[in-house]
């Protein structure tokens, strides 16, 4: 097997994972940005951000942790099942064919969210539900839903407070789980959520200040709910112009949705961020491309496929034909013996009872009378 081009990857940020891919026509790009978003009661916003922009700008599914608390697409009340539209002219289905929701329904809880951030998950959690970031990863967190001064509502029954969030980010910083983190929140009084951050390299954007409400943008009279929030709508309009090589920086992002459009005043916080926001590219968080080195040398490869080892030994033994199991063996079931339960020593109560009986017995009759019995 000969290859014209051999694509070399200069070290990946997944610790311990080195991938060399041998295929001339496909370029394998490893993304190192992470994108995590959560939604409590507004479904279209993260889907639109996800579908259109983050995916387009290059972050793959394996680097996206998507948490949706409600099931709207396949809910029986949705007149067009498996579709979610962000605009009332229904031109783009944001719940596309490729969506992969990692946490859905009752799994979206404060505890799970914090566990994903800090990495304290049970050992059997699959990779798609983990945030496998390290100290070279940039993380984008996008939350939307209902909130108030200092909290965000989860599932109508619990809340996450700004202090918990700040502590979670500090844990992440201590464990070197991020290089830079961008936090976007679109709820009422969203600025209160980033007031308490104290870890370095955090930048935060919110759709409204403390004391203000974030408003929704468009209602859909067919299903009776609003499709998107104002801040998210203008944010997405801004992201439409961003392409993978764009030089737009964070200062442009801060100008999105002024009060004339959004009614609420968006806020941002950059004091914990070490770089100047004007020098930070949008694509640092919303997309990513790795540097690849292409060489034109020819590489010779040996065939990696070993022929299957002949199981000659076992085939000699198994000459008799195998059979399928009887699906409903009535006679066998009727005469099935009950399972032999393992013998356990008597429980405390039985032991106590017997001790009491023996004590009373010996009390009444005395040891010396025993010889009359035996």
């Amino acid at each position, binding site marked *: 097997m000969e290859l014209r081009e051999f694509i070399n990857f200069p070290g990946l940020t997944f610790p311990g994972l080195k991938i060399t891919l041998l295929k001339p026509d496909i370029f394998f790009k490893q993304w190192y940005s992470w994108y995590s978003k959560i939604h409590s009661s507004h479904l279209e916003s993260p889907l639109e951000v996800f579908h259109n922009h983050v995916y387009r700008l290059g972050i793959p599914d394996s680097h996206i942790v998507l948490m949706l608390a409600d099931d709207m697409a396949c809910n029986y009340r949705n007149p067009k099942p498996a579709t979610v539209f962000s605009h009332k002219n229904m031109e783009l289905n944001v719940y596309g064919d490729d969506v992969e929701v990692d946490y859905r*329904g009752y799994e979206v809880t404060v505890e799970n969210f914090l566990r994903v951030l800090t990495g304290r998950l049970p050992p*059997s959690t699959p990779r798609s539900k983990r945030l496998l970031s390290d100290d070279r990863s940039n993380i984008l967190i996008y939350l939307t839903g209902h909130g108030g001064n200092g909290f965000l509502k989860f599932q109508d029954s619990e809340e996450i407070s700004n202090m918990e969030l700040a502590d979670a980010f500090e844990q992440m910083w201590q464990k070197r789980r991020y290089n830079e983190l961008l936090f976007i929140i679109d709820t009422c009084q969203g600025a209160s959520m980033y007031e308490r951050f104290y870890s370095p390299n955090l930048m935060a954007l919110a759709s409204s200040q403390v004391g203000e409400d974030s408003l929704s943008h468009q209602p859909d009279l067919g299903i009776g709910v609003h499709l998107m929030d104002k801040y998210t709508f203008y944010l997405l309009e801004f992201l439409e112009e961003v392409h993978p090589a764009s030089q737009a920086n964070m200062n442009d992002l801060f100008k999105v949705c002024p009060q004339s459009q959004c009614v609420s005043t968006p806020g941002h916080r950059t004091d914990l961020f070490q770089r100047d926001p004007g020098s930070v590219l949008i694509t640092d968080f919303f997309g990513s491309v790795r540097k690849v080195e292409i060489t034109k040398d020819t590489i010779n490869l040996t065939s990696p496929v070993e022929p299957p080892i002949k199981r000659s030994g076992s085939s000699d033994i198994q000459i008799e034909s195998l059979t399928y199991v009887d699906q*409903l063996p009535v006679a066998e079931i009727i005469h099935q013996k009950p*399972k032999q339960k393992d013998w356990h020593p008597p429980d405390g109560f039985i032991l106590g009872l017997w001790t009491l009986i023996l004590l009373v017995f010996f009390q009444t009759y005395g040891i010396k009378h025993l010889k009359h019995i035996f």
Partner: protein
Amino acid sequence: FRLSSLIGHISTCPSLIGQCCQRHPGSVDEFQEELVIRPLHSGDIYASFQFRTLWDTDFLQEGQKVSHYRLFPKSLGQVLSKFSVRELHISFTQGFWRTMQWGQPFIPSPPGAELWVWFHDTVSDVDGNWKELTNVLSGIFCASLNFIDLTNTVQPSASFKPLGLGNATDHRFLRYATLPREIVCTENLTPWKKLLPCGSKAGLAVLLKSEKLFHSSFHSQAVHIRPVCQDEQCTSKAWELRQTLNVVFDLYTAGQGKKEWSLFKMFSRTLTEACPLATSSKVYVDITDNPELFELSPATPLLSQAVVLGDRRTYSVFDLTRAETFGQLRSLNLLLRWKGDGGEMLRPLLHAERYVAGFGLQTGEIHTVIYNNHPYRAFPVLLMDSVPWYLQLYIHTLTVTSKSRDNKPSYIHYQPAKDRHRPHLLEMLIQLPPHSMTEVTVQFERALLKWTEYTPDPNHGFYVGSSVVSALVPSMVAMNTNFTQDQPLFSSFVPVKEESSYFVRVYTEPLLVNLPTPDFSMPYNVICLTCTVVAVGYGSFYNLLTRTFQVDEPSLPLAKRLANLIRRIRGVPLLT
């Protein structure tokens, strides 16, 4: 972007391997796909996709790890070898199968998610393997299967025998769990489609578009993995992976009221080619009721007869591996047009229903009704009920009546529930008299849960999984017990051991029961009230008792303060 799927796609790229579909000398795996379309008497249409990958390998062999995957998906292969799985059956269903209107499905499944697994007998900790397996599968299929734990897992003692090869069946290695609340949506279909060798790019899988599939009365996708006979002599085992998707399109919602169906109307796509990796790719249309009920176009001379579900049916076969199937336009769009009313369809011989009776939030009664519609034959059925612990069953009230007479089951296995540890398991082998209705009733009491155990929407209710009725139903036509290689997939799913009966599994409806729900705003109210009472009442009292009053001297003007300073130095009494 999963690397394994990418490697899978690379090795299946036609430009490398070519358009062949023969077996390679080194590899011993093959892939078949088929679609069966069965028009129903009510005007609905039932489509059943089956994709089968057969692979001659041994996942469970000691010492040799399987490392080269071609058609078999790597994610599932690794799951099988890591957890020593002998058989795995998982299904995701939206909607309920209406047996009385639609007949029997090819592959039955209960609403929600269902998972049952047979482990190998070398496994020492079955529960640990089960827990890890559910977590891994929840990541593969993007479903909340991690909610399966010991509180909803049961170990049936006689139902769910293995569907694959084997001789010893020790039920200690079987685990069964169902999540009736689980929803199925595009995010479950996407990874399911990625397991197919051709993905959703070629072959029959191009028809699987989620906007159309979920706009249906019934949608069920399943993965079945089991060891099967490799050839007719059955001397060696091969692993079979079957991915099945059953969907019933409704006449009024998807069909717009017109009794005319076509592939384009059902799936918004037509077929253009077979999957290049498939050895056989066929579409079967059930024309047993043709030409009285409907007419099919394009007509095809290829016909095939198969005995399935106790009935001999005739099918029109469209072989997609032959280019002439696609005609001039290079696309195949089947059209079925109804001609008048079809009349009544044959009543299914076995049918079951279930409902909750009673009133109030304290007690209730579960009724399971099983119908035997055979005119003169009686046959036994195995009923398996798995009830969550918070419905406390009173088994002394269990009654089984057929034709208003007591019917004693010949086998009962009951495992009582342990609060918060184990659900109830009730299995009974009941003989159903011919042409009768058998009713099984049991009373229960509803438990009050701890307030943290309630879901965020407790007023919706709590689901109880479907009952499973397994039976060997007498067949009207002699079943085919020989196993042939070119048997259509829909007739070879359940192994046939005898000619006179066929095995069928019927699922009842899941139940939705309301548990007594506390008022969740009470803790907040209590805290507010208590704090107010403490602050106002006790606080005032405490202040009254402990507060002391002191006379406060007014501050002196500046001149007097200076004078005081001098006086202090001199040691003379101060001014006031």
